[in-house]
């Protein structure tokens, strides 16, 4: 499986993503600088976490205007899977590849901790190695992760089964207490209509070996390998 990781100025999870991809897919990804105009032919494009362009104006707003994003958008529209993690998710909503917006966390603070997520469905290229309804632990590290969409859009996302992950408590309930950042409907990640673009705030690439504290993040990459090898 060939993958490309897009690197923006002040991306800081690009190398973590690269290590995870190389470890799990067996192939080192191509690192693609934001000023390039084309992404090499590949099976997966990953937009990594970080603080691209210092989060100026709005998180992800500047990166969404980077030269490379024209080709990322074109490739996504032609069916190439795209995974946006944290700042990558923010770039995806600013690029309108995914609906909604990611606002300042409800309690204003930067959050850096492990959270429980419920895998809403496992019939997608990103989640086949998990069980539907499985509760996994994945770290979050963000200031602007408070997912917002208009009432209509939110209803559409729910009706179309496009919520990928939800923040939940130990027994899988999406309670206000289990919601770290104020996201509507406890949303931690969503799919595009095609189900081939996934954006999520938590960092699966940070939890891929016991030495890092756990392996719950591996399933996402293993699912991609199975679907795209």
């Amino acid at each position, binding site marked *: 499986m060939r993958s490309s990781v897009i690197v923006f100025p002040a991306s800081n999870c690009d190398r973590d993503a690269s290590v995870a991809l190389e470890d799990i897919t067996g192939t080192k990804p191509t690192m693609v600088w934001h000023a390039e105009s084309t992404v090499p032919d590949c099976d997966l494009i990953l937009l990594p976490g970080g603080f691209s362009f210092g989060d100026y*104006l*709005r998180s992800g*707003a500047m990166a969404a*205007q980077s030269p490379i994003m024209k080709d990322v958008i074109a490739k996504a529209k032609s069916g190439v899977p795209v995974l946006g993690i944290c700042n990558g998710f923010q770039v995806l*909503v*600013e690029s309108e590849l995914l*609906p*909604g*917006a990611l*606002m*300042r*966390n*409800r*309690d*204003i603070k930067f959050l850096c901790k492990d959270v429980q997520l419920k895998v809403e469905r496992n019939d997608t290229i990103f989640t086949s190695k998990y069980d539907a309804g499985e509760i996994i632990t994945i770290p979050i590290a963000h200031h602007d992760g*408070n997912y*917002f*969409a*208009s009432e209509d859009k939110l209803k559409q996302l729910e009706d179309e089964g496009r919520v990928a992950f939800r923040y939940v408590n130990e027994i899988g309930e999406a309670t206000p207490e289990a919601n770290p950042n*104020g996201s509507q409907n406890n949303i931690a990640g969503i799919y595009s209509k095609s189900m081939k673009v996934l954006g999520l705030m938590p960092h699966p690439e940070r939890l891929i070996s016991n030495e890092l504290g756990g392996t719950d993040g591996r399933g996402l990459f293993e699912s991609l390998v199975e679907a795209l090898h």
Partner: protein
Amino acid sequence: MKDTKMKARITVTLKNGVLDPQGKAIEHALDGLGFQGVDEARQGKLIELDLQDTDKDAAMTRVTEMCEKLLANTVIENYAIELE
């Protein structure tokens, strides 16, 4: 009539109904300082542009496009443009 360059002032605010955590914090801080009677605080952004434009209508069209494409996220924000 002499050509004068223009300045655009763009005020970006969160839409009604969109939770504004920073505004809420400001509200609480003002209350904590003893300033009573503030019903609500909302925080926004002010962006100023020095433009080479001399035609007001053309400038308004261009700045509106800038707002739609970059300066505001219309999912959550409104914008107002003043030209002078």
